[in-house]
Structures are given as structure tokens and as C-alpha cells.
């Protein structure tokens, strides 16, 4: 029996298939408006990749859409999955920072990949992936360019607004200033404000080494660099950080198979 983990996020859906703790295949697709069907597609993609069929699978789902799919045997909270997933990739990690499209979640875990404590953003989008996208659009640069720019910055502009939308106008006012603030400094400022919010979350639960980053936003070199500066030490980043939760779900599926759960 194969273990399948599926993480249905607000923007993307990720699928991972495990066989005795080995990753057979993994898929990342964009979540469609119709959760059930788009999730099925993703699963089938992963199955064909692994040369498997839909039957004889144990499926654990996570992410915002975890309950919207009928074919999942067990929905699990994102925190539980992140902890299991990161522990599988980096056993030394005690704290994982998941920077998703619309939320960031900090999870502290023990050596067994069990959640000890966690914190997530509430009510405010400041410091999320969407926020970064908005800013990129505003500055008329791509996310990649943005990341490069930030690495060139000597100093960083101050962005204090707590509201994503007002941060926009702060950025605009930096652009409009006479003389305008250099792009790279503005970007550095944006990253600084995102990270400071992440750091605030971390401090709520108390920072513990090793620290890893997960979620699509973790692909952003510039941002990770800023994070490491703030932390004062290196941060581990998986090759495909988006998959961490899905892997965790797959591991939970495997555990359940072993427990003989149906």
C-alpha cells in the first residue's frame, strides 16, 4: 500500500507519493476554483509519474482545502504536516518557518517531528507571499529581479505600515520622493518589513536552532538572506520548499498504514 500526501493551498496544490519513506513522485499544480477535481488531476499526475494507479492508496490531505476532497482518508492540520515533513528532510531542525502565499506559520518541533508550539499570522496579510507579489507589481519588477535587487542594497528604506495596502502607499511615496529612493533600497525595505513580521512571530514562540524555511516564498534568495541576517545564523532551505507539508502528509499516511488504519 502506497502513502500519498496532498497539500491543497490557496494558490497551489502539492502531491507527494511515498514508498517505505522514499519519495516516488511529487507534483505541484495551481489550485483551481473547483477543489475536488483539480486535486484529483494533481493526484493522477503524481500517480502516472510514479507509474501507479488510484487504488491501494492511503491519502492524508492538508492545507486550506484539506476537507474539500472526498477521496482523502484523513485530513491533517498544516502544522502537524510541516513538523513531520521538515523532520524527514532535516532531522536537526527544531523550528520551521513556512512562508506561504497568504499566511506564514512558525512551527517548533521535537526530534520526533512532533509539534511543540506554533504561531501563525492572524487577520493581516502583511508579510505574506501575496504581499510580496503586490509589491513586485507595484515596483514593476519580477520576483526574481526583486530578489536580486535586494542583495545589491547598501541600506534599506523604512516601511512601517502594518497594513499590506498602506505599505503599498509607503512604497509609492518612496518612489515619488524627490530624489526617489533607489529601487534596491525600497526592495530591501520591503523584505526587512516582511522578515521583521516573521521574526516577531518567531519571538512569540522563542527561536530554537536549527531553523528551516518552507513554502514557495522560501525560494526567494534575497528574502532568505535577510532572514539569515536577522537570525544571525544560517537557515536550511529544501530544494523544493513548497513540498514540505505534502511530504509530512505522506509520512502521516505511511504511519497510519503501519498502524493498520483504514
Amino acid at each position, binding site marked *: 500500500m502506497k502513502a500519498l500526501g496532498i497539500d491543497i493551498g490557496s494558490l497551489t496544490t502539492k502531491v507527494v507519493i511515498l514508498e517505505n519513506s522514499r519519495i516516488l513522485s511529487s507534483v505541484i499544480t495551481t489550485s483551481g476554483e473547483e477543489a475536488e477535481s483539480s486535486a484529483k488531476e494533481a493526484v493522477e499526475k503524481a500517480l502516472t509519474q510514479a507509474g501507479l494507479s488510484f487504488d491501494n492508496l492511503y491519502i492524508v490531505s492538508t492545507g486550506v482545502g484539506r476537507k474539500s476532497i472526498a477521496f482523502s482518508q484523513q485530513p491533517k492540520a498544516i502544522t502537524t504536516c510541516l513538523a513531520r515533513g521538515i523532520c524527514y528532510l532535516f532531522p536537526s531542525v527544531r523550528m520551521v518557518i513556512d512562508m506561504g502565499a497568504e499566511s506564514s506559520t512558525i512551527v517548533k518541533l521535537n526530534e520526533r517531528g512532533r509539534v511543540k508550539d506554533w504561531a501563525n499570522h492572524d*487577520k493581516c*496579510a502583511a508579510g505574506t507571499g501575496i504581499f510580496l507579489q503586490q509589491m513586485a507589481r507595484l515596483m*514593476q519588477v519580477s520576483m526574481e529581479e526583486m530578489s536580486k535587487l535586494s542583495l545589491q542594497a547598501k541600506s534599506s528604506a523604512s516601511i512601517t505600515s502594518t*497594513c*499590506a*495596502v498602506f505599505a503599498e*502607499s509607503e512604497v509609492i511615496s518612496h518612489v*515619488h520622493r524627490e530624489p526617489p529612493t533607489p529601487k534596491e533600497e525600497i526592495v530591501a525595505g520591503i523584505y526587512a518589513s516582511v522578515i521583521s513580521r516573521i521574526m516577531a512571530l518567531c519571538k512569540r514562540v522563542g527561536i530554537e536552532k536549527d531553523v528551516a524555511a518552507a513554502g514557495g516564498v522560501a525560494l526567494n534568495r534575497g528574502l532568505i538572506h535577510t532572514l539569515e541576517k536577522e537570525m544571525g545564523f544560517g537557515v536550511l532551505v529544501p530544494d523544493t520548499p513548497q513540498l514540505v507539508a505534502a511530504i509530512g502528509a505522506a509520512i502521516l499516511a505511511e504511519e497510519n498504514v503501519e498502524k493498520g488504519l483504514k
Partner: protein
Amino acid sequence: MVVAGIDIGSRAAKAVILKGGSILSSVIGDTGPESVKTSYMVMEEALKGAGLALGDIQYTVATGYGRVLVPFANENISEISCHAKGTNWYFPSVRTILDMGGQDCKAISCDGGGLVNNFAMNDKCAGGTGRFLEMIAEVLNTPLEKIGDLSLESKSAIPFNTICAVFAKSEAIVYLRKGVAKSDILAGLHEAIATRCLNLLKRVSIEKDFSITGGIAKNKGMVKKLTEKVGLEPLLCEDPQLVGAVGAALFAEERFTGASIKAMKVQYGYSDGTGDYFITVNTGLCDGCGDCVKACPAGIFVVDRDDSGQPKVRVKEEVRKRLSFLCPGFQSCSSKSEVNCHSVCQKDALSHSC
């Protein structure tokens, strides 16, 4: 006299050119990343429309949050004053204004002269602003201008808990996944925003007449919700986005003629033992349309140019000493015929002492 008003908002930039109290040309464009450029762009557009050059403009007032960055402006005045002024030009009877811009939402209470009495602005969070609706339009992939009408088709509105623009968006996504009708989601959001606006209005006191300005006034769904909540039928001008720029232009006119509205009241007549016989013309409001000239049964009015070349009505020289005999006075006049100088004056520029 030719003047200009320019309004550099967070999302849109508007310019208006005014000649003798009437709009020569007006432009609405997007606010680019550099508002200095933007301000030149919209201004040139407007000048083209009027067939003028920047040199021909005698005075320019800038407003909107890019107001300090308009190089060719003589002065900048806050959006709040300009919206009050502009609305007053369209509808002198308006006392309460709701302006919903790209990133902020203002409630303004003003007097008959368009002077601000009190105002309140949303802050801390952009929930319930134009940007809020833009984001929602994006996720529902429905054009912004359509969402209002769509919301009206709703059978049962979805109650929204969050007021954060970005989170309302993700809540909306969740509902979409659950297969909730777009119209119901939109109705819910419009409801939420309207409530916020109402609370903002209450902070400045709600008096009639009521007007809505800014792009949002084009959103039928929002206007309907607001009408329900506020309990007043709002007066809407044909191009609500321009109001700020118009206000700025009117200020420009005022500054150029150097006269402020209150100083512009001209009284004709006299008082004797039998009482006061005065007709007061507010030349700040009077645009010299001449309707009152036709309407007055005694034909005591005449229109001609004032010192600054503006067409204004005045009481004929020869009749000023005989007003008490000629002019029946407002009450008696209006009781005889519903057509009189008051009833026809669109700008509320005339008043009688009796």
C-alpha cells in the same frame, strides 16, 4: 480667466481646466509609479482637450495624495477641502459627502458654501476602500465595473468576518471553492464595506443632502447598499471621479481672483422705516446663467461681467432705490408663481431679506 485643478490620487490621476466657471476639458488617467510624470501627462491631455498650452493656465491647484509633487502647481490643497468644494459646485444643497478613493475613504460634512465643518477618514487598514474592491474583482475574475451590478443579483449575501482587504480575498476564495455564487460573495462584501462607510459617516453626523464621490459612486451595488444604510437618496454627479479635481480648479479660480466666497456676497437695496429691502447675490456661487433674469416678474436683474471678467447677475442700477415697490419679495412672489428667481437658480446664489 483660465485655471486648472489636478488630483493625483493613489490609483487614478485627474485634471480639470476651468474657464469662467465652466469645464473646458477634463482627463482621468492612471497614476504611474512616478507622479511627477503622471501629473505632466494628465495635464497635457487636458490642455490638448482645451486647445491650450500650459502657459495659458493662470493658476493651478493640486490635490490628492501626490499633490506635493506637481511641479507646475501654484499651491496644493487637501482632498478633503477639494471634495467639499467640488461637490458644492455640483450640488449646493449637499451637507454630507462620502468619498471613496483608491486607498482611503472620507466622510465630510460641509456648509452651503462648500466649507468643511468636520471630516473623518478610515485609517490603519484599507478594508472598505477602492483597493479592497479591486482585489475582490481580481479573485472573482470579474471586471471592477461589473461587480456592483453582479452584487445586485444576489439572493442571500454571505456575511464577511474580516475587514482586511487581503483576507477578505482569501475568504472569498474559500467561498468560491465551496461553490458559493459570486453575486452572494459580492453582496456580502458590499454589505461589509457599506457598514464601515456608515460608521465613518456617523462620526461626522449625517445631514441631507447626501452625495457620494470617487470611482465607487459608479458602483450601483454599493450606491444601493449605502442608500439603504444611510437612509438618504444620494445625489450623484455624472463623473464622480472628477469632483476632487473640480474642487481644486474652483480653489484655483478663487485664489486667482483673490476673493473668498464669504467676501463675495453683494447686497442690493436699502432699508427704511417700513423694513429691509435687500436682494443678496452670492457671486461666488452665481455663474451668470441668467435664468433669474427671465424668471423675475419685475425684470429687475441683468447679467454682465464683474471685475475679473466673470459673468454675474446684478440688480439693475435704476431699480435699486425702488426695490420695495418692484420686487414682491420672496414669500409673496413664490406664493403667486412657482417660477421665480429662487426656484430657477441652480446654484442657490440668490436670497431676499424678506
